């Protein structure tokens, strides 16, 4: 079966999911699917930097969180518009990625991980301390959520089902964009850099410029995921910038398999799903989550997608 055909049932099920709310399952499960979609986009964005560009980032929560804060602040202070708030979220995250890239592009491996980590923690601290703007550790409750008018069709984002459709469409667009980037000459050059920097440089690829651009695209998509999350939750808090989230998204990408993009979706289903199930079952979910991470790293370091199709095995991290 060709790839588009295999994905058709998944796409169809995702598109029709809101119709079952109240009939087959409660609204909670639709929210869960929305979260999974958003985190899948976030993990795919990380995969672009980490799995394709070989940029070991341990601070992607910074891009996600700043996208979320920018979107929430735009809704409150600028305009109740999806395009404006999401656009500002993407812009803010891309700007941060450009700044981080400017500092970090010469760093490699663990140094890069530490620098990205430090930047994300810096914004976490600012979110906690700058109470007047960010609401401090209490977070920032949202404003009125925007309505979308497309001809006769009106989407009210306060309605979780309408929000879901918007999120689904945007996440799908994000995935398609990421796929286009990976398939483009730029993406091919990025893979060449990951495989051997010296050889890539020798055939005339500007290594630093490609790495910087990869981080900006990855940051922008992470910011979009963060903005969607903020609009969906109608609430942002410093947790969205905390390094635990940076670790979580790496786990999601790793679980699915680095350098695959669609692995991010598989990883998000498992990681977000398990976390939600665990936290409803037991107060001690952190113990199980930690143990699960350790288990994932020790048992499936190549990712679950490649476990199913062992032909495409590539080295991890």
């Amino acid at each position, binding site marked *: 079966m060709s790839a588009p055909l295999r994905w058709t049932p998944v796409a169809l099920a995702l598109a029709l999911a809101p119709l079952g709310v109240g009939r087959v399952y409660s609204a909670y499960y639709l929210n869960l699917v929305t979260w999974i979609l958003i985190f899948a986009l976030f993990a795919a964005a990380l995969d672009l930097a980490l799995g394709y560009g070989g940029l070991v980032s341990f601070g992607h929560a910074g891009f996600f969180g700043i996208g979320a804060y920018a979107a929430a602040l735009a809704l409150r202070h600028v305009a109740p518009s999806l395009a404006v708030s999401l656009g500002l979220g993407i812009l803010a995250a891309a700007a941060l990625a450009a700044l981080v890239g400017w*500092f970090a592009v010469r*760093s490699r491996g663990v140094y890069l991980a530490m620098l990205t980590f430090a930047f994300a923690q810096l914004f976490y601290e600012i979110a906690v301390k700058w109470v007047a703007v960010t609401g401090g550790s209490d977070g920032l409750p949202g404003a009125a959520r925007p309505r979308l008018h497309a001809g006769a069709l009106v989407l009210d984002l306060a309605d979780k089902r309408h929000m879901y459709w918007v999120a689904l469409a945007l996440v799908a667009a994000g995935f398609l964009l990421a796929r286009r980037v990976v398939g483009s000459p730029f993406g091919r050059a990025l893979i060449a850099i990951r495989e051997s920097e010296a050889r890539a440089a020798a055939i005339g690829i500007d290594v630093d410029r490609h790495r910087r651009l990869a981080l900006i695209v990855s940051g922008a998509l992470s910011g979009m995921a963060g903005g969607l999350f903020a609009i969906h939750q109608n609430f942002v808090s410093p947790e969205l910038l905390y390094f635990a989230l940076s670790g979580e998204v*790496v786990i999601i990408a790793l679980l699915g398999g680095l350098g695959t993009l669609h692995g991010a979706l598989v990883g998000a289903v498992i990681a977000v799903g398990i976390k939600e199930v665990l936290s409803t079952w037991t107060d*001690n979910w952190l113990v199980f*989550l930690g143990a699960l991470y350790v288990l994932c790293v020790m048992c499936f370091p190549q990712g679950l997608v490649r476990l199913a199709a062992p032909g495409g095995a590539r080295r991890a991290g």
Partner: protein
Amino acid sequence: MSPEAILTQVLMGLTVGVNLVLVATGLTLVFGMMGVINFAHAALFMLGAYLGLATTARLGSFWLGLAAAPLAIGALGAAVERGLLRPLRTRFPDSHLLPLLLTFGLGLFFEGMAKVIWGADVVSLDKPAALAGAVTLGRITFPTYWLFALVAAAALAALVWLVVERTALGLTIRAATQDPTMAAVLGVDVARLNTVVFGLGSALAAAAGVILGAMTSLSPQMGSGVVLDAFIAVVIGGLGSFTGAIVGALLLGQVQSFGVALFPAFHTPLVFLVMAVVLVLRPTGLFGGARRT
């Protein structure tokens, strides 16, 4: 600021700084030898504090707690290295990310366990009665326990420095940090040394956990702030460098102390600013070589 106030801030910064040295030592040595950023370090620091609390409560002696916690956490650290990290690194010698994720997961696991055993609330570890109150040093008064924390951590750090710089074990550690392959060729059992160093680093973190825990308070997340500072100290000093960790930690102690006094709202960004400036000028830190990335 008056001279007395400046001196007080210097002493407070020094107290924080020498304790950061204890935390940073494990981070930098483990990185230097194994190329691993240990994200479970914060949890080991926290578990040390709680073990100190449990021992103190059970046996009624703070000093026994201060002795028992490093021993137990040192053994735990050695077990983690031998049981999980070594097999993973043998299978994926080139991966930076997998060990980082392993220790990240372990950190969450330990934090969760602490919540299960001791609860999520903030608790306090009582300092010994002999160390209550304040002492007068010339024209300044300083809390007795802070002075103890300064002297005890400094003595421990000096001991570690002697071991690393002046003993045969320290010589093999330094050799393995510079070039693990060459050290192994010359007959150093690098695998065993990794276990020893991981255990030693964990024990030092646990000691700092007890000392600082009694100074402030205990909670399952208590490690993240301190270890973040230690990370920054290590990055400033140069990952893998022991001297760098000491210099970085002492510098950071002063930045923290004066930052809190002079810019109370924005002392944390100040710390990151110092790190960013150092890394832009010297991408591998003050004492880091370009050797390992």
